[in-house]
């Protein structure tokens, strides 16, 4: 009895450690895995996975990963998985009995930690998909069946041949997100990667103050972190006052150039979204989803695409995305609510605090987007809607980053004409005096 208590306690300790590890410093990794999948509660989706080799573990893993939407719940899932893996390993090790369970109990306990710790280490490479956890559980379960439940030597012999086949069919062979690339110790708990994921998580959840605090603790030095910091400052009306306190990498810190890569594109999409440039935001969300290296769709992007289409008045496409999201566990409620909003018509959308504001910011005149004239586009946004304080801040700060003070002065005049009073404008006055 006492031994069982020790064994359960050991598994519980692992579970608890895993819980706090994934819920606190590693929550942004959970966010990353969750935002780049689209798990549908749909028979078609289930069957399409079963058709593929390894699709079973991918399906089960995606089912669990959807709970990462809330990192407190997601961490419980991982904790239970780790608990289960440890318990299975212990049971299997004890059943071998080669050492004499009672004589070498400490050794068995130590060995039982190996799969869990190795898995913990490997998951430090954020591109290892969590289907690997399911694959490990499948492997241990097969071993369990082989060693413990089959007593006949003949069946065990047959099982030895069948188990690898069953494993490959159920669990597949590849659990790395990026094709033609494999796990590397260089990627394990890579500081820069984790920093990017942290900022990505904070931008996604609109935690502007936390972004600023992170940047205060450590100067942002990556294009994405600079962009996120500027966006956070803009959203809290502090660009004029504080942006120069942080490292800036030129105008690219406001509008990073387009790359065929998901994270940077997603953050840039958020900038355009909050500026009210819906078509451009839509393009970036779409590209961010398409750039996912394992071809998975993204619930985060789909949600934003539904929103941008709704703000643009393209209700049928928005409905399509919302119907898809209504087949998910965590977005269903939001999707149904938003569908009702669309069904209520333009009036209801205009009343919405976010969508209504963004629709009013949306430009009526059309032209082709040019990232070389983005300051002018910000100017047009401001002239179209003088409540667009973010556009004002981006336009003015853009010229400061370009060191184009003549343009800055011109824009200051424009802003003074367009905006009767804006507290944030005062923070830019110091640059007029300076130059």
């Amino acid at each position: 009895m006492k031994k069982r208590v020790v064994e359960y306690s050991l598994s519980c300790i692992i579970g608890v450690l895993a819980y706090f590890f994934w819920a606190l410093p590693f929550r942004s990794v959970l966010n990353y895995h969750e935002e780049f999948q689209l798990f549908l509660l749909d028979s078609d989706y289930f069957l399409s996975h079963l058709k593929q080799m390894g699709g079973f573990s991918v399906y089960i893993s995606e089912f669990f990963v959807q709970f990462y939407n809330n990192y407190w719940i997601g961490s419980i899932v991982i904790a239970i998985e780790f608990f289960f893996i440890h318990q299975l390993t212990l049971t299997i090790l004890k059943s071998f009995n080669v050492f004499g369970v009672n004589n070498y109990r400490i050794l068995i306990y130590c060995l039982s930690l190996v799969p869990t710790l190795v898995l913990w280490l490997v998951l430090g490479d954020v591109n290892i998909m969590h289907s690997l956890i399911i694959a490990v559980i499948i492997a241990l379960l097969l071993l369990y069946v082989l060693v413990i439940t089959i007593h006949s030597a003949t069946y065990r012999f047959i099982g030895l041949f069948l188990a690898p086949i069953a494993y490959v069919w159920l669990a597949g062979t590849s659990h790395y997100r990026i094709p033609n690339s494999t796990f590397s110790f260089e990627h394990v708990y890579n500081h820069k990667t984790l920093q990017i994921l942290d900022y990505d998580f904070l931008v996604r959840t609109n935690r502007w103050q936390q972004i600023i605090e992170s940047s205060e603790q450590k100067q942002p030095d990556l294009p994405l972190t600079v962009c996120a910091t500027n966006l956070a400052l803009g959203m809290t009306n502090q660009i004029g006052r504080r942006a120069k306190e942080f490292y800036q990498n030129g105008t690219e810190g406001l509008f990073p150039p387009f790359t065929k890569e998901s994270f940077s594109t997603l953050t840039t999409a958020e900038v355009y979204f909050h500026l009210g440039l819906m078509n451009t935001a839509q393009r970036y969300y779409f590209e961010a989803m398409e750039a996912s290296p394992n071809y998975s769709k993204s619930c985060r992007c789909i949600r934003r695409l539904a929103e941008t289409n709704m703000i643009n008045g393209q209700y049928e496409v928005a409905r399509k995305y919302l119907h898809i999201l209504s087949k998910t566990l965590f977005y269903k409620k939001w999707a149904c609510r938003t569908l009702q909003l669309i069904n209520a018509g333009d009036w209801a959308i205009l009343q919405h605090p976010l969508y209504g504001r963004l629709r009013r910011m949306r430009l009526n005149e059309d032209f082709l987007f040019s990232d070389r004239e983005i300051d002018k586009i910000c100017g047009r946004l401001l002239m179209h809607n003088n409540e667009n304080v973010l556009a004002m801040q981006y336009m003015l700060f853009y010229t400061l980053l370009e060191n184009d003070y003549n343009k800055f002065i011109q824009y200051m005049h424009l802003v003074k004409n367009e905006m009767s009073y804006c507290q944030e404008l005062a923070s830019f006055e110091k640059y007029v005096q300076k130059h």
Partner: protein
Amino acid sequence: MKVCLKYILFVTVLLFSSCHNKPDNVTRVDQFPPIFPDYVDVTIPVGIAPLNFNVVSNGDNVPCVDVIVKGSIAGELHSNGSLAQFDIDDWQSLVASNIGGHLAVTVCAYVEGKWIQYNDFSINISEHLLDDWGLTYRRIAPGYEVYSKMGIYQRELSSFDEFAIIENSNVYGMCVNCHTSNRANPNQIVFHVRGDHGATMIQLDGKREWLKALNDSIGGSMVYPYWHPSGRYCAFSTNQTRQGFHVSDLNRIEVFDMSSDILVYNPTTHEIVWDSLLTTKDWSENCPVFSPDGKKLYFITCCQQSYPMHYKDEKYNLCSIDFNPDDGTFGDKVDTLFNAVAIGKSLTWPKPSYDGKHLLFTLIDYGYFSIWHREAEQWILDIQTGKARPIDEINSNESDSFHNWSSNSRWIVFTSRRANGLYSQLFLASIDENGQATKPFLLPQKNPLEYYENTLFSFNTPDFTKKRVSFDSKTAYKEILSDNRTQTKVRE
């Protein structure tokens, strides 16, 4: 835990439940059933896969429907469940027994606690055969510059079976496009591979050849292809294509060519034939297609503009030039067949019917990349009289774009964004000898609502194929990665 239990219950119900209730106390309503896809009064060919459909109420699938399909000549089918779903053999037999007649469809649906019977509707069975095996098309997300999983696929028309011809999942970063067969003949096909291992693939009677993607002498790569009916030549355009992105217009993307010319390639000699009339400096020649007798080359042409500033002035006319297939030479004058510019429009994707009577094209306000133009509509030109008209029978409010003819020229397939304005779907319609079309029908799927609602792909560049395309994709992937390419040469 509660959430998990709910989920398990949901999946179990989803997998094993179906409606087996029979209608009783039926209330009649004077309207056609709200079904997806809209199959009311469509015309279909013999041999087409069952026209399964869902009854939709408030955007959701009605989980309990009872449908009776009666042939005007003979036969009857009954379906009861979460959608109108028919056995393939029973459906084919019913349709075959009613050629020239129609199927009367009676729909009852269990909506808000009561059975409702709608007005019957008809599905007409065409006398025109569609004797091609299936369709080929590209499936890709309707994106901008980045693409995830995509490929060229073929679909059997008599069933729901789809097969990949080539997908990009085996060669990372690869894109495939512009697959074209010679009059639906799967033994003569061409497509392009874009990306690090770019090439133009030509497969003739099972023998594959990978042409170098970029050729300095033509100033770019081969783009839009069209086979000469003899199979001895393949015409291509070569385009310096750019994209622009609208800031607020609902048409999201603008495609324009900094320049484009037309060339003809001889697969036997690997020679490229140029002609000064098809490579003018101030005009952009594009979308070449041969006439069915092979003696003319149709193409579109527009006066080169300054892009992106004047992209709205990029307007194309339909022209033709004589072609001598014996020596691969061109005539010395270009004729204008349809002056779209004169009516303030732009013409694109000319496709002559294989019987030589008509020519399909798409008309838009400007440019040629009609998929991103909501105003795009299908037109038909009578080649004998030179008269053209919009095919109102098939056009919609959204982009109706790329099209192709069946091998007997009695059916067309085209893409349309009518469902939601973004995701292109495939529609089929019959066209009679006089150029009159019937109401088009959406390519059938086993569970259409679930399929089309879930898919995040567009179907584009569809074409018919007489037989299943035989393409050894495993070897092809190796060949793509090998980068062994045949160099083309310009005929002096």
